[in-house]
């Protein structure tokens, strides 16, 4: 009963926050509502028995998306003070009927899918059966790396493509609106970083290692690690640079390249494409993916092609 009430509260919160995000009177409030929406979404995932998704949503969906939105907002505000930032909502007589109609449609579809007699998914059953033979406790990591590896490989490519496309846009004026704080530094920031950065690295390594037997994995770990990077940028320890140094470039590409190369090796002795040659390959690829994800997200946040030592660095 209490569980049901809690779920009701979360569901109502989701709806309310979503509505606030799209209609609130200032864009800044909208972003804050959206971030809180993401965190509530993480709660919802935890409630429906999907802790992996809860972690991913909290770290990636709410945390980093929120950070990216805030820094984009700041660039908007700082770039052209003459132009109005937010024109406010448009008047549309059709908006409400269309919204209600599509909501109803999705509701009917969703409820009938939920209450139709579905057999347990064949793919899911096959995964659980096959995982018996592999020493990998977390079936989601199994699906992502062993059975649907090409999805994961291409997904890392999607993240890389988003960065490359954003970098291609940045053009020559990438210096504007850097997210670094202005003004002198307080000693407390240094103290915070001295504690939080090692702790964040520890947590991400733990998440990475845990991903093989309990909730966690490369994406969650990479997002947490990127959080540390965001903190370093905000405190002026590192800053955006025009181009990436060799180390940053290697880190950026490590995940995709190692996945492809390890995936291609079985072909040399007649094996199937992307068949990973053992669990060590899973761990190796996950580690490389963690680094790549973290660096890509940090670069997207910094808004440049690379990283350099910041003014407080």
């Amino acid at each position, binding site marked *: 009963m209490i569980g049901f009430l809690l779920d009701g509260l979360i569901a109502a919160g989701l709806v309310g926050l979503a509505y606030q995000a799209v209609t609130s009177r*200032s864009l*800044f*409030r909208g972003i804050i509502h959206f971030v809180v929406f993401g965190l509530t979404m993480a709660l919802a995932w935890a409630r429906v028995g999907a802790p992996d998704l809860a972690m991913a949503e909290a770290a990636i969906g709410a945390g980093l998306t929120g950070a990216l939105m*805030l820094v984009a*907002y*700041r660039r908007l*505000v700082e770039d052209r003070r003459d132009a109005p930032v937010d024109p406010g909502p448009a008047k549309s007589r059709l908006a409400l009927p269309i919204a209600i109609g599509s909501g109803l449609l999705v509701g009917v579809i969703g409820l009938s899918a939920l209450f139709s007699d579905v057999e347990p998914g064949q793919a899911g059953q096959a995964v659980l059966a096959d995982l018996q033979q592999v020493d990998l406790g977390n079936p989601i990591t199994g699906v992502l790396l062993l059975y649907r590896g090409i999805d994961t490989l291409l997904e890392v490519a999607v993240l890389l493509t988003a960065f490359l496309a954003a970098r291609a846009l940045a053009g020559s004026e990438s210096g504007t609106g850097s997210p670094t704080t202005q*003004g002198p530094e*307080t000693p*407390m*920031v240094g*103290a*915070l970083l001295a*504690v*939080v950065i090692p*702790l964040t690295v520890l947590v991400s390594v733990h998440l990475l290692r845990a991903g093989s037997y309990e909730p966690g994995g490369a994406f969650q770990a990479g997002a947490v690690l990127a959080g540390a990077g965001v903190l370093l940028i905000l405190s002026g320890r590192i800053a955006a640079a025009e181009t990436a140094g060799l180390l940053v470039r290697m880190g950026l590409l490590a995940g995709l390249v190692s996945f492809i190369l390890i995936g291609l090796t079985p072909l040399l002795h007649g094996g199937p494409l992307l068949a990973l040659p053992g669990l060590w390959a899973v761990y190796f690829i996950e580690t490389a993916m963690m680094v790549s994800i973290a660096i890509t997200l940090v670069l997207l946040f910094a808004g440049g092609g690379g990283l350099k030592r910041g003014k407080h660095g």
Partner: protein
Amino acid sequence: MTPTDLITLSLLLAGCGFYLAGTVGLLRFPDVFCRLHALTKADNLGLFLVCSGLAVHSGDWRIVSLLLLIWLVGLLAATVSAHLIARHAHEHEADAPEEENELR
């Protein structure tokens, strides 16, 4: 209901009470400094009470140390961010003394 449950429950309820007080303070107090005052103090204590309630409930030393860590990190983050917000507000006092401190 065992005594442990009772202790857990009362600690959690007390923690929630402090959170509530902190939130009311955040919403009702007049300026940034008062709000921060309400928020950091009450919420840090609330977090401590909730964590200790859960610690009593779990009874496993690994969980207890994790909860302690959570509280310490929360404490640190709250302290530093409150300090930074207060400093920002202090420096920009002339700009926006009363309105919400939006990033404009």
